[in-house]
């Protein structure tokens, strides 16, 4: 088992270490400030400037007794499938406006509004190539064939009988974001094509054992049962390592947008390879060179050549609070929070700079720190009220350091489209308004 990553500043949430911030006030004061700040921040994110704390009745509480205490609430079973509070109605997927069509398109996770590492299933980012099919699981079949001794057809119930595996993995679209202007304004606009869930299914290796691999097997073509018949080739070694055929996400059956009733999870590899509505796995001796691995999902370079089979999502992080479109309510204590991840394994460290990238300090990593999962980080900052730029930088267990946008552009130009994992700087204005420092 790998050693756990080094975790510094291992202290309660709102108590910064003196090492990080020498001039900080006593924890009690800080906590009050923090609560005030974070309340206002969340409100600003969810409801804009109108987030007033005062109740509609005009009666300040306390001393007024809350209305919720004066009559029984809604009955048990009033909602047989629970949903968020109506006050959270603005925390929804971020769908780009003005697209020419919405069949092969994407919507983004509202990263700036979320906490923790598990993305709620209903807020998972979407990238579909032929819309979301409506599939009856009783009708659905998975065919496993090609270079196997016994080609097999499985029902969903068959697959649920095999030994099961549950793992937490992130999923990220390879174009998150692209390299060209206009750059997004919010964390969601920029990097909202990443989400993280707990996946339950059967190891693909188990199914290979059942069918029996031929000695010349080298690749596996995965195909979806959607209108795009989405097709990707995956190296066999990866499939034998950690690929799952998944039927559940976050404890319940997959959502239709996530591939109901079956999908592949190819941990750390670009999202489109995690084929949804999985209907066929064909073991081959070479890639099939499908449209999605030739004309799309290849990375064009300035000299006119293009990289193909760029599978892995490299280490990346982003500050989600405070982030673009939000406002820091006042100078003083601000907990900088964000997410980090790497397709190559665990996040080893996240550095944060609050002075435009001149100096950096290690952030606290929130346990659990899991391989190919989102990892939460936080950093205790005391903002002096002056304009500045804040940003985060992930380092993964291979030692790879998340690069700056300038470093990526210098190597790849701005037509590469995929695999932009650059550091994202946020400008904090005197007013507290936060915006994309690249704009």
């Amino acid at each position, binding site marked *: 088992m790998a050693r756990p990553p080094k975790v510094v500043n291992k202290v309660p949430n709102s108590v910064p270490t003196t090492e990080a911030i020498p001039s900080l006030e006593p924890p009690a004061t800080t906590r009050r400030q923090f609560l005030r700040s974070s309340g206002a921040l969340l409100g600003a994110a969810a409801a804009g400037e109108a987030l007033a704390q005062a109740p509609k009745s005009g009666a300040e509480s306390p001393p007024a007794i809350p209305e919720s205490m004066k009559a029984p609430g809604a009955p048990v079973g009033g909602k047989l499938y629970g949903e968020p509070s109506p006050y959270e109605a603005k925390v929804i997927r971020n769908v780009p406006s003005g697209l*020419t*069509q919405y*069949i*092969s398109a994407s919507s983004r996770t509202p990263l700036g509004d979320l906490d923790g590492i598990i993305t709620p299933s209903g807020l998972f980012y979407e990238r579909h*190539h032929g819309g979301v099919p409506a599939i009856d699981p009783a009708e659905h079949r998975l*065919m496993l*064939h090609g270079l196997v001794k*016994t*080609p*097999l*057809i*499985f029902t969903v119930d*068959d*697959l649920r*009988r*095999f030994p099961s595996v549950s793992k937490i993995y992130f999923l990220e679209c390879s174009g998150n974001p692209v390299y060209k202007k206009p750059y997004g304004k919010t964390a969601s606009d920029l990097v909202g094509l990443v989400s993280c869930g707990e996946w339950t299914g059967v190891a693909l290796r*188990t199914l290979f*054992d*059942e069918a029996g691999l031929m000695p010349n097997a080298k690749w596996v073509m995965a195909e979806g049962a959607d*209108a*795009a*018949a989405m*097709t990707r080739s995956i190296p066999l070694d990866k499939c034998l390592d950690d690929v799952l055929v998944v039927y559940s996400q976050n404890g319940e059956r997959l959502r239709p947008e996530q591939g109901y009733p079956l999908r592949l999870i190819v941990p750390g590899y670009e999202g489109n390879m995690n084929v949804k509505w999985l*209907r*066929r796995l*064909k073991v081959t001796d*070479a890639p*099939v*060179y*499908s*449209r999605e691995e*030739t*004309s799309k999902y*290849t990375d*064009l370079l300035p*000299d*006119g*050549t*293009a*990289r*193909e*089979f760029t*599978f*892995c999502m*490299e280490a990346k992080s982003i500050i989600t609070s405070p982030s673009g479109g939000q406002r820091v309510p006042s100078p003083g204590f601000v907990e900088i929070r964000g997410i980090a991840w790497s397709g190559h394994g665990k996040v080893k460290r996240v*550095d944060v700079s609050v002075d*435009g*990238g*001149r*100096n*950096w*300090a290690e952030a606290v990593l929130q346990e659990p720190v899991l391989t190919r999962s989102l990892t939460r980080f936080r950093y205790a900052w005391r903002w002096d009220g002056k304009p500045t730029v804040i940003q985060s*930088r992930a380092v993964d267990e291979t030692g790879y*350091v*998340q*690069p*700056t946008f300038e*470093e990526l552009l210098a*190597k790849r130009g701005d*037509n590469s489209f995929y695999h932009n994992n650059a550091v994202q700087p946020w400008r904090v204005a005197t007013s507290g308004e936060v915006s994309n420092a690249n704009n």
Partner: protein
Amino acid sequence: MPTIDARRRASRVCCALLAGAAWFVAFPVIAQTHYGFGRPATAAQLAAWDIDVAPDGKNLPAGSGSVAKGREVYNTQCIACHGAKGEGGIGDKLAGGQGTLATPAPVKTVGSYWPYATTLFDYIRRAMPLNAPQSLSTEEVYAVSGYVLFLNGLVNENAVIDAHTLANLKMPNRNGFIGDQRPDVKDSGCMRDCAK
């Protein structure tokens, strides 16, 4: 001397090992990799679903289609999204762009970017037209593949396209792809007084 807790832990480990051994002896079949779930696929089932086409033309069906027929199919099925001459619209630009890949404004089309003509047949058959995929006949797919190649100047107007044509057509950007060179950027990870 071990503490009570340590002894309890050791005892638990021993029990687990013994239980594991007993389980293995009692149910050896579980240790095998074969579970017997799923059913063998029949030849007819395999043939109906096995639609992917390899760059060498393997798995392309018998049959053919002419560029002339392809023009008819294109003007009925494709023109609304891809434009009269493959110039694009709601759908991707399909023609032109050769020689632009190394410029600041590259134009990626079938003719300028796609490495294999077989992929054109494969993709049209599985996913086009957008509103009714898998509705075209084999002849129509060959024909319209041929017409897109014609729009790119890669076959002539009188051509008839079949498996042989697609597998043997050397696309202009066939050698334009290289492997994954990442990590291609190495940030120093500077912590103090870094250049901005």
